[in-house]
């Protein structure tokens, strides 16, 4: 089973304080820690688990700057056999559609049985690249995959619906699956794995290698153009309780008591 995993190198922002940059179209990147996109981490783990079970290869592929090598190295250390980075200054400003075109230009010439991706990226949150890529490749797809079982040329997947409900679908291979977090438990990288990964080569391709033109990529080749970033307006601002932990705890306890909650 030959598996391609699409990954993205993104800043960790869940617990970071974000500032909008001077252009007004991005965030200040200094001080942010970058890592593999959380959803893609699960996609990679799923790919490696399948390879360990049935054999084959895992290729990690990303669109991003040279810094993204650290994410690809992580993939190689976790069990990917090869890695491809698609890098070109012209790719900047690409939305989901343009990214799908870039990935498609390379993947269409590769041999694969399965493509795995994360459902979405933690930065722009489009949740769209995979489905567009599947359409371009002409293969079936499923998103929000919480469970994946392969069986003789087809796959049985559980998709997450709202409210804890799931649906089971049967899909013919080759296919693309965009996985949800929690589909597995991603492994820690061993020191051995990291050492080995440092020796593996990362193949780097640019716009000229993709067969696409400048008009296909970046802002020009995108459906969506960002005009302005801003801090979301507040719907209901919490009344902040300030002070030492003792003072804060005292105030909360009093609020709860006054409302008959304790």
């Amino acid at each position, binding site marked *: 089973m030959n598996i391609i995993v699409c990954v993205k190198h993104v800043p960790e922002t869940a617990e970071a304080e974000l500032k909008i940059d001077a252009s007004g179209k991005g965030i200040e990147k200094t001080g942010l820690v970058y890592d593999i996109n959380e959803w893609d981490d699960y996609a990679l783990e799923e790919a490696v688990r399948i390879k360990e079970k049935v054999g084959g290869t895992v290729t990690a592929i990303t669109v991003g700057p040279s810094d993204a090598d650290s994410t690809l190295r992580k993939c190689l250390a976790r069990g990917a056999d090869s890695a491809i980075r698609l890098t070109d200054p012209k790719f900047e400003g690409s939305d989901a559609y343009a990214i799908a075109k870039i990935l498609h230009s390379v993947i269409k010439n590769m041999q694969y049985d399965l493509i795995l991706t994360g459902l979405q990226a933690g930065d722009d949150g489009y949740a769209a690249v995979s489905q567009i890529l*599947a359409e371009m490749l002409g293969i079936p797809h499923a998103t929000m995959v919480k469970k994946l079982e392969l069986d003789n040329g087809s796959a049985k997947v559980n998709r997450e619906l709202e409210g804890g409900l799931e649906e089971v679908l049967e899909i013919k291979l080759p296919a693309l699956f965009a996985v949800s977090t929690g589909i597995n438990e991603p492994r820690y990288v061993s020191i051995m794995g990291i050492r080995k990964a440092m020796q593996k080569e990362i193949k780097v391709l640019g716009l000229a290698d993709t067969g696409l033109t400048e008009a296909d990529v970046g802002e020009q080749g995108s459906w*969506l153009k960002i005009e302005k970033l801003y801090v979301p307006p507040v719907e209901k601002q919490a009344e902040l309780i300030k002070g030492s932990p003792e003072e804060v705890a005292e105030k909360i306890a009093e609020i709860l008591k006054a409302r008959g909650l304790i």
Partner: protein
Amino acid sequence: MVEIFVLTEHRQGQIRDITFEMLTKAHEIAGNTNAETTALILGKDVKDKAAALTEYAQKVILIEDQKLENFNSEFYQKVLTQLIKEHKPILTMIGHTSYGIELTPRLAAALNTPLATDCIDVNLENKTLHVTRQMYGGKVNVNAVLTQAESYMVTIRQAAFTAQKPQPPVNGQIIEKPSPLTEEPATKRFVQYVLPPPGGIDITAAEKLVSIGRGIKDQANMPIIEELANAIGAAIGCSRPIVDKGWLPNDRQVGSSGKTVKPKLYIAIGISGAFQHVLGMKNSDLIIAINKDPNAPIFNFSDYGIVDDLFKIVPVLKDKISELKS
């Protein structure tokens, strides 16, 4: 007449709320742009459902087929491709839900129609589509514009708009169309629905909830939360990362892919407040959030906020509450 399409989302005999939320927004846009709203409903035996849509849309296009009994994006794509090519709507609105995510980007690519996903606002001005969406888990809003086209597509976030029946009533007309689906075999087949087995605790029935998120860092830190919950007499809920890590069973998850709760007290500890979580708890009577990031979106939905390290606050809070009770 220029049309705005709204795809009806329904499952197991129920039209989902997102449909009426989108229809309300579509009606507003249509009013400003001299367009009309057309609701699309695809399914099997859904005529009675179509009637409910006539209160919101000028036209309801109904297509029935055995194959449309359960949602299948492959069949939906075929039907919608034909309808969109035929009607050329200026805008097609679909929910940013499990169904909409599966269907829409691929449909947009097939039709080469510019798409913006997960929108929280949409505006059509001089045939240009402006949208508002979010990035970085809801910490930043983005105004964006779609590349100029004859037809646009958006997916709309759940609860971004409040459903409201148009006044005066629209009394839309139901138009039944034949299904374009053929006997051609599908690459995707619906098998069944699965509901995970219920666990020990029903958090939707709890009057008080202490809910934890990524901020608790390690499973080893669970005891301080359990002690606080015990002191208050609350059940423990959580946001998605805690279930993904296997620290709590999935029936404790609050949010769009978990449970919707409305307790008298909801204490959110180390939860940043991504919209998926907020959808499941924002109607709680009293919400108190503890998070060290002053810009965490959770503070925009809470009554009281504490910007501090949860590990400093939680143990002291437990002691104070125990003191006050005794």
